[in-house]
């Protein structure tokens, strides 16, 4: 039984306009780590909007957890390329923002404040931000802000984490650090992840399954399972098997760009 499934989904932002994605079908298991790669403007972010219920499909059906998506789902956490932390809140308060919105946390927030605060601090500690809770976002480096942003996406224990190029704006070393952070978070307490990215190494290193999308209108061209043993140390990126996967995906992307 798949956790997220798309059945022949198309979406046009303007009615009757050009499709942003076209005839997409895919199935994601609960706990699966999926990466979606493709040339820019291929509708990867559209995919996110469909799964999270921010946009209804023009055609086809989107199911999450056995039900058709009909509006925003509260079991989802999201993070984007920009950390988008609120500058007037401390890092801890930023991380706890979803608890002020999602039920049942919202109603229990007053009673359980101490416990929730402890949870948020524990989560910050897990991503290496212990002691930074009372700092303001603009006192943190870009990588630290992105860690906090991912904490914010996870604080309400979502079953599905949607990441839209979350590491795109970071330098190469910080990016690899954050890959490992995400890998560890996911391995400690599995949740389903959909990671949209431009970075093939990132996709192969983190994901169980990589989908390659075509140019606009976006279609799924290739589905590739990454059969590297877990847990994956960063060194795996220097193996031949890893390079093989990246190379293969790169060829698909190259063909799309030429077409």
């Amino acid at each position, binding site marked *: 039984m798949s956790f997220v499934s798309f059945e022949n989904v198309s979406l046009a932002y303007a009615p009757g306009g050009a499709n942003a994605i076209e005839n997409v079908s895919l199935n994601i298991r609960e706990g699966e780590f999926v990466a979606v790669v493709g040339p820019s403007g291929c509708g990867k972010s559209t995919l996110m909007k469909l799964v999270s219920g921010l946009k209804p499909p023009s055609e086809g059906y989107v199911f999450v957890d056995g039900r058709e998506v009909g509006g925003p789902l509260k079991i*989802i956490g999201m993070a984007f390329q920009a950390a*988008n932390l*609120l500058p*007037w809140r401390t890092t801890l308060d930023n991380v706890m923002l*979803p608890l002020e*919105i*999602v039920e049942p946390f919202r109603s229990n927030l007053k009673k359980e404040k101490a416990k929730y605060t402890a949870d948020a601090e524990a989560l910050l500690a897990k991503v290496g931000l212990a002691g930074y809770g009372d700092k*303001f976002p603009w006192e943190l480096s870009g990588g630290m802000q992105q860690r906090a942003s991912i904490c914010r996406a996870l604080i309400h224990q979502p079953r599905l984490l949607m990441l839209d190029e979350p590491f795109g704006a970071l330098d190469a070393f910080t990016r690899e650090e954050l890959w490992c952070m995400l890998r560890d978070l996911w391995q400690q307490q599995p949740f389903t992840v959909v990671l949209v990215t431009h970075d093939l190494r990132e996709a192969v290193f983190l994901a169980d399954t990589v989908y390659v999308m075509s140019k606009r209108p976006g279609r799924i061209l290739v589905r590739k399972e990454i059969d590297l043993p877990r847990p994956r140390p960063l060194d795996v990126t220097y193996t031949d098997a890893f390079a093989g996967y990246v190379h293969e995906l790169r060829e698909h992307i190259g063909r799309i760009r030429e077409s």
Partner: protein
Amino acid sequence: MAVKQSTLIKVAPWALTITLFLVWEIICTGLKIPDYLMPAPSAIWVAGVEYASPIMMHATQTLFTTLAGFALAVVVGMVLGLAVGASPLIYKACYPLLVGFNSIPKVAFVPVLVVWFGIGTVPAILTAFLISFFPVVVNVATGLATLEPELEDVLRSLGAKRWDIMIKVGLPRSLPYFFASLKVAITLAFVGSVISETVASNLGIGYLMMSASSSMNMPLVFAGLIVIGVMGVVMYELFAVLENRLTGWAHRNPNAPG
């Protein structure tokens, strides 16, 4: 010994103002310009001291009407700004009316107010309000309208209602814009109340200046002008301090956070 840059910056506004008055004094006395044309600062000072108690009385009145009009402008501007910023429909609907109304010189509107409310305090308050609410509306609306779409997506995907987004993000985010507009609005409010007092009142600095100039008492006219200027600067500074206190995060300095 070199003077430190920071002390220089602190002293500069005082130094420039004093220099300006000194030059003014020297020109007036040096060229023997008569007081009824252009009074020297010393003559203005003498007039200010001589008429201290009526000036105080009229200044209090002007301050009161200005602040009352300004308070109205803040409340109405905030509400209208929130509505305009939150809804594209209201924005489209209100925009031409707002811009059109703001283009009307408010002095042309004072006679209408006088017909409706008689001369005196009420038209002054309303003129101050009318002239100063526009920047508040525009700034609050801008603060709301420039909300990052990703942030809105994050909150909406959690099931946040429009109201949640407004309270948690929109409102705090528009505060720096709001405070910036207060500084503009308070100085405009003085313009409004004094205009109205000049045309239609027997109280307030505007009236004082009108009656002084009709009796060719130029030093008193200038004393009135300076009192208005001083009140404007003081109020502006007050809101600048308030702004820094409440929205320090928006004027962040990596070396001195908070």
